[in-house]
């Protein structure tokens, strides 16, 4: 099968790529659109490192065929900070040691941002559930959990 044209909005910018319809959205974002904040961990939907928003919903970009992104609004970790400031979640991860090697961090930030979008006063269990699809091999999770808690405090 030949390549096809896929159009989507990437972090606010209209984007057009020529790719195979079954190409992973993860690769389209990183290689065709050269937006490399999104990371690949496992490539099988287990680790959450490639988490992005597609039409506002948190998804694993390694499991989305490119054709299904056509016409969609895609947001990656690069969308979180403004020109001059980190988002509250990013700031909290920065201050409270929520990132170590950094591979899981973009996915963690997206999952945590997703939680705060829909739940302004999450319980500890809500936070754990929201981050349950994101694996980290460095932090032991405590500092990530704490970073989300601190971001919530900063919100109030």
């Amino acid at each position, binding site marked *: *099968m*030949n390549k096809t044209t896929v159009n989507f909005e990437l972090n606010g910018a209209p984007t057009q790529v020529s790719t195979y319809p079954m190409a992973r959205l993860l690769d389209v974002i990183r290689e065709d659109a050269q937006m490399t904040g999104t990371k690949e961990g496992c490539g099988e*939907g287990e680790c959450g490192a490639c988490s992005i928003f597609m039409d506002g919903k948190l*998804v694993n970009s390694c*499991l989305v*065929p490119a054709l299904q992104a056509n016409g969609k609004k895609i947001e990656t970790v690069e969308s979180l900070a403004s020109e001059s400031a980190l988002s509250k979640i990013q700031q909290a991860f920065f201050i409270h040691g929520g990132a170590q090697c950094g591979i899981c961090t973009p996915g963690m930030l997206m999952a945590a941002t997703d939680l705060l979008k829909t739940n302004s006063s999450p319980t500890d269990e809500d936070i754990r559930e929201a981050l349950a699809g994101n694996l980290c091999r460095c932090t032991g999770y405590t500092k990530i959990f704490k970073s989300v808690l601190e971001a919530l405090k900063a919100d109030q």
Partner: protein
Amino acid sequence: MKSYLPEFHLTKATSLKHALDIISTSTITPIAGGTDIMVLLDAGKLPPGNFLDINSIDSLKNITEDGDYIYIGALNTFTDIRENNLCQQYFPMMCEAGRWSGARAIQNRGTIGGNICNASPAGDTPPALLCYDAEIELSCVDGTRWINYHEFHLDYKKLAKKPHELLTKIRIKKTNPNRFELYQKVGTRLAQAISKICFAGLIEFDADKRVKKVRLSWGAMGPYVLRSFKVEDFICGNKIDDALIESSVKQLGQELSPIGDIRSSSDYRKHVAMNLLKHFLITSKGH
């Protein structure tokens, strides 16, 4: 080794009619949320061929109430189901199953129809569907037919669905709200883990506290999700007491011959299943 992408043809269906027209004349595999197929693709284990993207068929994304039934479109995601009022009210085990399938990002993409048709013996929603006596709608260009879900799986990954048919809806009858039901998943961790064992149980009593109806369904125990029909028959009509619990558990041990695989041994599965049944029956007594 990764798959060679030019060998994978993907066509987008713009409507249900369009999808049914295409599958009526060609050998093509539907792809919905992609949470199973894309894993195989990346692992180089997906046979190349023709795929049909059905994920934008909006008419298969409704959850509606009509008379005695709730209808669930095949393309509803786990998130749609766990957040839906009708499902929460009438079929809480469906919401539980949705909650423990993968994690948020998977639940936002994986669909109920995909969970059924992928036919993994370890699927999390199918045991709940079996307990609720769900029926599924199969559509083709010539029309639709309904079949009982417990007749859908014929063998490992073999379905009572013809190649030119598409699973379009699930319907479940609203039944006695005074039933007791319990959904339990045993895995290495709660989220993301594929079940070692998944159990859904449902029980109804008559005024005399005798069991009027019981459903015991299992995931990851055989070549497909299954019910313990013999144990159900054994329990039905009786009062739950210690002797009945003991003999039911024994009966289950005889009826089940679980698979052993990378996730768990056959012995472990059988032992845990017997404990789950015991717990279910004891807990139901207090209902």
